[in-house]
């Protein structure tokens, strides 16, 4: 445990500047996507294996907690994709390393330009939907309504 805390503290403290922040963001976004992905894949397989359970789970995923998480996953996928392309290009074209700092900034700008309108759109769409539902928007659906 103390080694985990040490790892986290030293990961943030190391001052590699722009490339260091890209590295942290790439790791965190990757782990976040993986957490969602594993849940999503096993859950979606239930559409075939256990449709009633699947129907309940997607009703749960309409809760505001997951709606906000969905916007987070969108952000993570977009950053991870753009920065992944940067890593791949720099790995295969080492002569471009002299632009590594500029490329890290470019990825952040590209991410902001593409994510901000998409994230806003998703948030507005969700608030409109939740507003229509009223109090029901905040209720978790009961499993017993779907199975049994």
């Amino acid at each position: 445990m103390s080694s985990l805390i040490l790892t986290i503290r030293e990961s943030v403290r190391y001052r590699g500047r722009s490339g260091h922040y890209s590295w942290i963001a790439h790791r965190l976004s990757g782990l976040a996507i993986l957490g969602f992905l594993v849940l999503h894949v096993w859950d979606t397989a239930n559409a075939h294996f256990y449709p009633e359970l699947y129907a309940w789970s997607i009703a749960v995923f309409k809760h505001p907690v997951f709606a906000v998480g969905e916007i987070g996953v969108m952000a993570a996928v977009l950053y991870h994709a753009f920065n992944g392309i940067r890593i791949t290009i720099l790995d295969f074209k080492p002569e471009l390393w002299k632009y590594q700092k500029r490329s890290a900034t470019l990825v952040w700008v590209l991410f902001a330009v593409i994510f901000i309108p998409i994230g806003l759109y998703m948030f507005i769409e969700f608030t409109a939907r939740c507003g229509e539902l009223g109090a029901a928007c905040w209720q978790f659906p009961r499993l017993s309504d779907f199975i049994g």
Partner: protein
Amino acid sequence: MTTVTPTITHRKVKVKFNFERYAYLFMRMSGLVLLILAVGHMVIQHVLNSSGNLTLIFVANQWNSWGWKAYDIFLLLFAIPHGINGLRNVLADYIHNPGTMKVINIVLAIFVVATVIWAAIGISLFDPEAARQAAQGLPG
């Protein structure tokens, strides 16, 4: 004082192709594929469609065609190994005991195979008619 311009020299190095090198190349290649498949999936399902409209009927309409089934199976085939190998890379940075790492590698490999097979069977065998029947009488 003269300034020295750093130059990068190229030299061909014979690299033995072992598992770690294939894993490294796989991350780059699958990453390019996922740029299309995963970002495309996010835009199609979470922006153009909305998870607010997601129901069993919606899934039945989507997986009515082998085109969408194939898209999702390809996404599965690239995303799960890419993600789990990424996790393996992160763990390998912090776990220095080769024995522990070997156990983790085996567990993660089994997890990848099990997940891909289970979900691919689920997508392939998904029957839209059966799903529509199951959806009848369910809330939402």
